[in-house]
Structures are given as structure tokens and as C-alpha cells.
């Protein structure tokens, strides 16, 4: 069955773009279940990034946000926030094939909704274990739903811990490891990280954390495929590894870290934004990790790095992609692309995709001697409202999902 989605009313520029029918389900990939996808790597091993993407469909969103969409079983889940103070919190489920809305849930913020101008209340990306969706907003309201939109549990973390907030806005995205939802509520005042029971939302553990703003997200590491994952909590102090089931502290790397750019794990190595980038090799006996290399020349700034095809890539705010050897940290090339950027790049195969703040999606061939932009697509943003794109895209087979304050797009080939 083919389905032609009506044009969005966003901008006349949309008329100049080709709208194609949706792709069949066979081009759907594995889930993209959290911020930066499977295992927070920013990479989908079974996805393909087209060098000539086109907009398949777009749908308007009822509120603002910069959280990434996630994809579970062909459904796209996205948060946003509406109202004069962004106090109405939305979680919406769309059909990934045609953008039709399947369900929408709305709750009222019980915590503070103040953010700085560029941040949003819907800044944290939800996560999923394939059966449930766990969503949190900057107001520290958290809710869990099944895939049909039935409410499973809810927490108002500012009701519980009144001084846990950030007037600039929170942005850390949770992850779910086994039956634990790991979420970081770190800020200048009442700062902590939580392990919540995925079934009930009750605290399994609560760790006091450095009293310092922190917009990074937890990631996981495991010694091998049979081992239990370890949760990595990053802060300006460094990295703390904890057992997600109990919250027990396992090891610590305390040489500092970014409060904005999150770590990435690839092939057992943790690449953490610390003094540039530091590559760490943890040990299964919980001894402190070995530092494999450090490069101050790779500066991820606010953007999280990606490891792809043996290289580590980062983009600085101005729009320079740095590529380095993932094994040694040795610089390989730098490529200027059109910035500025707030969202992190994602990758598949040997290609990177990054969407800048002005909605320009750029596809980079990382095998070219100095990297090369091989494709671009301009999203039709509303110039009158100075709309911008701050989210990190999501990959699903041959499709890319990206959002702005007002719309969700699916890009295809």
C-alpha cells in the first residue's frame, strides 16, 4: 500500500522538495531506542544513509523541544512541551511508515520549567527496552508507558527533591539497563543520579553526585557480550562506573570531563570527553581503567563524539569535523562543514549524518582522504520564527528522523 502524506504547512520551500511514498517495512532497521541509538553509540549497524535524502513526510508537533525521536518496532516516539511556560508535557507515538499519529499523552509539569533561551523543557530523549517507553522532561517529571500508551508509572522528581533543578534547563537523557532506568538529575544544588525500578518507578538506588551543572547522559559499557552492563555516569569531575542494579560504585576516572558532550563506547573502549578526548580501557575486575590515549586536539565542545569504521569523529560548534584514529587518537583529517551545530552526528557504514542548527542535513563520506560532504538536504524551517534544529537525528533502516520545535521529519532516499 502506498501513502502520500499531505504537505506540511510549514514553509513554501517545502513545495520545492520531492515527497516520496513511504518505504516498505523491509527497509526498516533495528530499533533506535534512546539518545544516540543502540548502546548510545550514535551508530546503526544495519542502517544506510542516503547521499541524496529527500523528505518522506513531516508532521507538525504541538509543542517545542530538542529531544531526539526514538524508534521502536516501527513506531516513532517523541516528546515536546507546550503552553506559555512549556508546562504541558507531551509524549507522542507516530507510525514511522507514514507519520500518522497513533497516540498522544499529555501531563502537567510538576517541577520548574524555566530554561535558557536555546534550551527546552522537552530536551531529554526518552528511552525504551522494546516493551516500555521511559520519558523525562526538564521539569524532572518522568513517566513510563507501554507501547500502546498505557501509563505504567510516574514520578515528579522535583516534588520528591525540591532543589533538584537547573534554571538553564536539564537535558540528560535516561537509559534502561535490564530492569533499571538510569537517570541523571545533576545540577548546582540537589544533585543526584537515580536507578529506578523499570516496573514501578521506585528508587532502587540514589547516588549523591557533584553539585555542578551537567547535561551529559549516562552510557553503558560491558566487558563482553555475556557480562552485565555497567552504567557510566559522567560529570565535570570525570566518570563513575556503577552497577545499574544496585548503584554500587565500581570504579572511577577522576581527571575531569565535559558537562555537555557525552561519552561513547565502541569495541570495549570508552571515549570520554575529558581534556579533549581520553580513551579508556576498563577492566572486568573493576580496577580503575587504563588510559589508552588522550588527545587535546579533538575538542567535542558541546557535541557527543561518534566512533565509526575505526575512527572517532567529533564536531565543534563552528562546524569542523575532526577525525582521529580510534586506536591511537592520531589526527587524520579535519573537514569544515556548514555549522553551527548543537545536535550530535550519527553514523552508518562509512557515512556520517549531521544536521546543523539551520536545518541543513549534511552527509559525509568518511573514507574520502580528508572526508567529503557528498550530500545535503535543507529542511524547510520557519524563518519568521527563527526556528532551529538542535536535536540529534535517529536512524532506522534507510530512514532518518529529525525534529525541530514545530515538526518531525522522516527523511528517506
Amino acid at each position, binding site marked *: 500500500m502506498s501513502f502520500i502524506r499531505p504537505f506540511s504547512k510549514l514553509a513554501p520551500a517545502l513545495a520545492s522538495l520531492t515527497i516520496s511514498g513511504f518505504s516498505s517495512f523491509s527497509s526498516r532497521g533495528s530499533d533506535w531506542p534512546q539518545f544516540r541509538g543502540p548502546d548510545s553509540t550514535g551508530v546503526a549497524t544495519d542502517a544506510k544513509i542516503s547521499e541524496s535524502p529527500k523528505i518522506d513526510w513531516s508532521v507538525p508537533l504541538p509543542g517545542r523541544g530538542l529531544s531526539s525521536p526514538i524508534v521502536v518496532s516501527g513506531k516513532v516516539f517523541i516528546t515536546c512541551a507546550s503552553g*506559555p511556560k512549556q508546562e504541558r508535557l507531551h509524549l507522542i507515538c507516530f507510525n514511522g511508515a507514514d507519520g500518522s499519529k497513533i497516540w498522544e499523552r499529555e501531563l502537567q509539569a510538576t517541577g*520548574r520549567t524555566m530554561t535558557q533561551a536555546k534550551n527546552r523543557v522537552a530536551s531529554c530523549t526518552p528511552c525504551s527496552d522494546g516493551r516500555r517507553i521511559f520519558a523525562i522532561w526538564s521539569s524532572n517529571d518522568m513517566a513510563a508507558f507501554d507501547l500502546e500508551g498505557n501509563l505504567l*508509572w*510516574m*514520578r*515528579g522528581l522535583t516534588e520528591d527533591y525540591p532543589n533538584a533543578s537547573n*534554571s538553564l534547563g536539564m537535558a540528560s537523557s535516561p537509559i534502561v539497563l535490564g530492569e533499571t532506568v538510569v537517570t541523571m538529575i545533576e545540577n548546582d544544588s540537589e544533585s543526584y543520579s537515580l536507578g529506578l525500578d523499570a516496573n514501578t518507578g521506585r528508587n532502587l538506588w540514589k547516588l549523591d553526585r557533584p553539585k555542578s*551543572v551537567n547535561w551529559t547522559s549516562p552510557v553503558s559499557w560491558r566487558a563482553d557480550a555475556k557480562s552485565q552492563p555497567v552504567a557510566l555516569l559522567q560529570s565535570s569531575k570525570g566518570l563513575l562506573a556503577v552497577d545499574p542494579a544496585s548503584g554500587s560504585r565500581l570504579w572511577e576516572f577522576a581527571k575531569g570531563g565535559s558537562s555537555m558532550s557525552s561519552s561513547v563506547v565502541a569495541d570495549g573502549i570508552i571515549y570520554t570527553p575529558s581534556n579533549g578526548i581520553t580513551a579508556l580501557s576498563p577492566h572486568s575486575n573493576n580496577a580503575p581503567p587504563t588510559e589508552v590515549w588522550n588527545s587535546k586536539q579533538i575538542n567535542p565542545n558541546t557535541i557527543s563524539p561518534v566512533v565509526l569504521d575505526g575512527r572517532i569523529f567529533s564536531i565543534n560548534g563552528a562546524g569542523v569535523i575532526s577525525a582521529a584514529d580510534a586506536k591511537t587518537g592520531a589526527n587524520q583529517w579535519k573537514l569544515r562543514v556548514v555549522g553551527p551545530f548543537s545536535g550530535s552526528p550519527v553514523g552508518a557504514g562509512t557515512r556520517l549524518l549531521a544536521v546543523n542548527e539551520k536545518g541543513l542535513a549534511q552527509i559525509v563520506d568518511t573514507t574520502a582522504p580528508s572526508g567529503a560532504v557528498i550530500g545535503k538536504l535543507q529542511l524547510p524551517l520557519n524563518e519568521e520564527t527563527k526556528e532551529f534544529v538542535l536535536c540529534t537525528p535517529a536512524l532506522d533502516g534507510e530512514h532518518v528522523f529529525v525534529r525541530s520545535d514545530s515538526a518531525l521529519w522522516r527523511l528517506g532516499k
Partner: protein
Amino acid sequence: MKAFLTTLLLASAANLYGAVDASLNTLAAVGREGAGNEAASAAWKEVVRQGPSALPALLAAAGKGSPVADNWLRLAADVIVENALRAKQSLPLKEVEAFIADTAHAAAGRRIAFDLLQKADPARANALEPSLIQDPVQELRRGAVQRIIDSAKTQNAGDAKACYLRALDAVRDEDQTRFLTGELKKLGVPVDLPKHFGFLMKWNVIGPFDNTDRKGFDAVYPPEKEIRLDAAYEGKGQQVKWASFESADEYGKLDFNKPFGMQKEVTGYAVTTFDSPDERDAELRLGGKNAWKVWLNGALLFGRDEYHRGQQMDQYKLKCRLKKGANTILVKCCQNEQKETWTVEWEFQLRVCDSAGTAILSAKADVK
């Protein structure tokens, strides 16, 4: 047989209502840190299963528990309405409208009721909205105010002015107020913003005390132990005394840099007396980007040790109980060590209002 069936039906109805009430009570009872979540999850499904018939009781249950509990109820109402619309099932909209109209109901319930009316029958909600212009719930009157603002834009200056004044009487949201103030100013009508919002303008201030290494936030300086306006104390490197200070800012900002100079790693205090005609519930709403604490009649209401992350009106809403007569409001405001140009502010703004944001004015103008 007929009597038996009637009895059976009545018993079933009683059981159903009993089941709904029990489920609603479970939702209203969710506590801190997810207490009650397991039971609430099952109860939520039961309430949704009951469908539209559960809505009146659901609305009545809102406001009995915490705001988190209200969200459980809100989401149940949402799904009931969504399911009913999809199945073309009727909803008790007459009862919902009556619920909204009765301001004796809890604010949370009335807000949920209006939202579900908007979803189920937008035309009906649109027709009702203008009547909410003076509603005790701040969120409910916003739409009615906006209608007046929008209508004024198409009118001549004289009629527009009348519209804007009518809207000003009702407005409680800052963004709408700023717009109205701007438009009225263009039309030659000044607005007394401090009076409109209830900002406290007249204070006695003392400082600086020390805040080196941000330790001043927790340090207990003399104003936290006693308010003696003729006292002198040892401050940071100097003797300090209370002095009167009046804000000239139309949004009530008290700038400690003015009496004390632009200093770093210091703490200041401001105290005022607020005269309430009655004992009553109120809110102290504070905005500020420095670390602060607020006491009411000697009891600490709240404190926050965050610096220079942003400031806005009504940033913090502190629920309190004013006593009849004189109430002492003490504010502690700390400046830290940061040197960036955007960290020079050492100030706060504070207003007294009800839960709708309506200003509560002190019965006495002078500060003692």
C-alpha cells in the same frame, strides 16, 4: 424475578462505583518517591476501563493528592476521552461543564475538566472560555484574556484602550501583562506594575556579610537570629547596619549593588513587614539568579544555592500562610566569586499573591 434482577443491577452498579472510587482513591494517594505506584498502575487501568462514567468522580478526586497524583488522573481522563471519541461514545459533557463552572472545586480538577472539554468539544470550550475571565485559576483565565487582547487589535484606539484596560484587570500572566502594558503606554495610559503584581518595594537592607567559597549560604548571620533594625554587626571587613531601601524597578527588583556596591563573595539581607488583613493562604513568588533563602515570620520557607543560571519572574513559588496583622519577610541573597560580565547581578524580586497570581497588597504602606 423482576425484583431479583433489579436488585442485581443495583448491586452491580454499586460495585462498579465502589470499584471506581477505590481506584480513584488509590491514584490520589500516590506518595513521594513513587510510593503507591504499583497499586496506582492497576488502578489507572481500572479507571480507564470504566470509561466516561468515571469522569465526574475522577474530576472530583483531583486536587486531593499531590500534583503527581493529579497527573495520574489527568492521563486517565485523557485516555477515556480519546477512547470515547474513537468509539463515538457519548461523554458527560454537561456534567463536565457544570464542574468547571463551580469554582468551589479544586483547581486541578477544573483544569483537567476544561482540557478534556476542549478535546471532546472544542466549540463548547470556546463558548465557555470568555466566562472564565475572572476565574480563580490562573491557567483558566489566560485564554479569556487572550481573546480580549486579540479583539483589541482590530479596533480603533478608543475601543482598543477599553479592551486593554479590561484585559489588564483580569491578566495574571507576565507575558500578557508586558504586552498590555506596552500597548497602554502607547495609548498614554501608565500602569502601576508593582501594584498590579504585588511586588514588595520597600525594604530594610543590611550587608555585606561574607560569602567566600560560597559558605555564606549556610552561615547563620545575625539577621537570621534576630531582626533589630537599630543593631550593628560585624560584616565582611566592616561594621554593618540596617538601612531603608526602596526599589525603583517596575518589576520590583531589589539590587544590592546599589546600596553596597558591586562586590563579590558577599551576602546581603532584606527584611520587610507585610500587613495582612486576614490569616490566609498566599504565595511568595521570587525571581533571582543568586543563591537565596526566604523566611516568613522566622520560619524558613525555602532556600536555593544556585548562582547565575538565569532569572525570571515567579521563578520560585513558595506557598505560605500569612497571619493576620504584621508578617515579617526576610530574604537572604548571596553573590558568589564569578567574574564574567553576566554575573554582576546581586538582586531578587519578590511578590505576594494568591494561587491565581492575583496580587495581595499589604494593608500598610510603610516598612518598619
